[in-house]
């Protein structure tokens, strides 16, 4: 039996229909993927919190796409799918913790990062390579995780940029020493660092 659409329900359905109009992804139009902007996701999540099943489904589908990209950059697409599922479950279970007055993507990103760190903790526990207290001390902001993420990001750079940034920004060599070690001229080292850092910045912002 179909429920009559009246009053608030009708209003909600109209708002939902507007929000659910997907926006074509201009950058990847060939893939014909659809994306929601942050404001739309925030409104959808607010409706989901109020009990709207359609909005909840739309949020989860949108999150699924975003999470696949997020994890693929960090651990590779082949291992990402299980984490995507875990994170969707977390989004579902912890939806009460979202504040519709705040941006949605940072909320989702924080949950995604938490699940990722939790997965790494589980992996290390299984391997027993480190002691329990060291596992407890794992901090998502720690240099280990920064380096883990950085290694993934560095894969997106050219060989010259990766070598220059690794030698100067990570290993702490001077420009001259990096030039001698890498075989690049001093000016090329500087240019590779400049361009590589700009590329890294844009990658991090995409996250």
């Amino acid at each position, binding site marked *: 039996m179909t429920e009559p659409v009246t009053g608030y329900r009708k209003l909600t359905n109209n708002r939902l229909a507007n929000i659910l109009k997907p926006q074509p992804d201009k950058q990847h139009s060939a893939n014909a993927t659809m994306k929601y902007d942050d404001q739309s996701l925030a409104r959808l999540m607010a409706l*989901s*919190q*109020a*009990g709207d*099943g359609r909005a*909840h*489904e739309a949020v*989860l*589908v949108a999150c*699924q796409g975003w999470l696949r990209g997020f994890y693929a950059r960090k651990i590779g697409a082949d291992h990402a*799918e299980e984490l*995507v*599922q875990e994170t*969707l*479950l*977390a989004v*579902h*279970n*912890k*939806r*009460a*913790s*979202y*504040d*519709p007055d*705040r941006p949605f993507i*940072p*909320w*989702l*990103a*924080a*949950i995604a*990062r*938490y699940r990722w760190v*939790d997965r790494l903790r589980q992996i290390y526990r299984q391997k027993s390579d480190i002691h329990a207290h060291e596992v*407890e*001390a794992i*901090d*998502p902001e720690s240099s280990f995780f920064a380096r883990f993420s950085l290694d993934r990001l560095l894969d997106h750079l050219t060989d010259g940029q990766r070598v220059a940034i690794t030698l100067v920004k990570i290993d702490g060599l001077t420009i001259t020493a990096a030039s001698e070690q890498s075989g690049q001229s001093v000016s090329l080292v500087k240019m590779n660092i400049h361009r590589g850092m700009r590329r890294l910045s844009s990658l991090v912002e995409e996250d």
Partner: protein
Amino acid sequence: MSNSFIQSLVADHKAVRRLNKRDPLILMGALFLGAIAIVAATLGLRDDVVDGHPAEIVLLRGGVLLSLGLSSLIAVIAFSRPSVGRHSDGWIWALGVAALFPAITLLAAVTGQFPAWVLTAPSGPVCLIVSLALAIVMGAALTFWARRGAPTRPVLQAWLIGLSSGAFATFSYSLHCDSSTISYAGIWYTGAIVLASCSGRLLLPRLLRW
């Protein structure tokens, strides 16, 4: 992943009550007033507090303890919601100010001006026991609330819950405390807060993970 997984989540979906920032403030406010009432009923309040003219040291240490408790409570509330690049670090400044009490005590010890009676004062262990007992109640309630949220840094959250409940509990006791010396607060108040914080760090992370 098949979308049957998403469909199963949608089938389980129902309206939820949003995590409310006011709830923990009201909860901790009620427990804080209750703690003061318990101290007043069992141990009694200082005469100057009862008279409404508290000594300067009472105002000073009370202000420091309240700012420490409140700023760390605000951080607990903020960190119960997942977010990126959001900092709620007022508690660090409050902790820095509170650290003046043990720092001054240490300086007194180095310069030979430390009042030795502070270490053997019979009220010292009472201060520790009462403050910790009250902190356990407050910390348990705050943990229960935080579990409704989604703390993404459970270890830091555990420290902060211990710090906040320890500071509020010690303030409650301080309204009874006869001592008016900084060294006493530097030893016993600091001890109570450190113990509460360390207890939170040891016991709470496993309860806060999700």
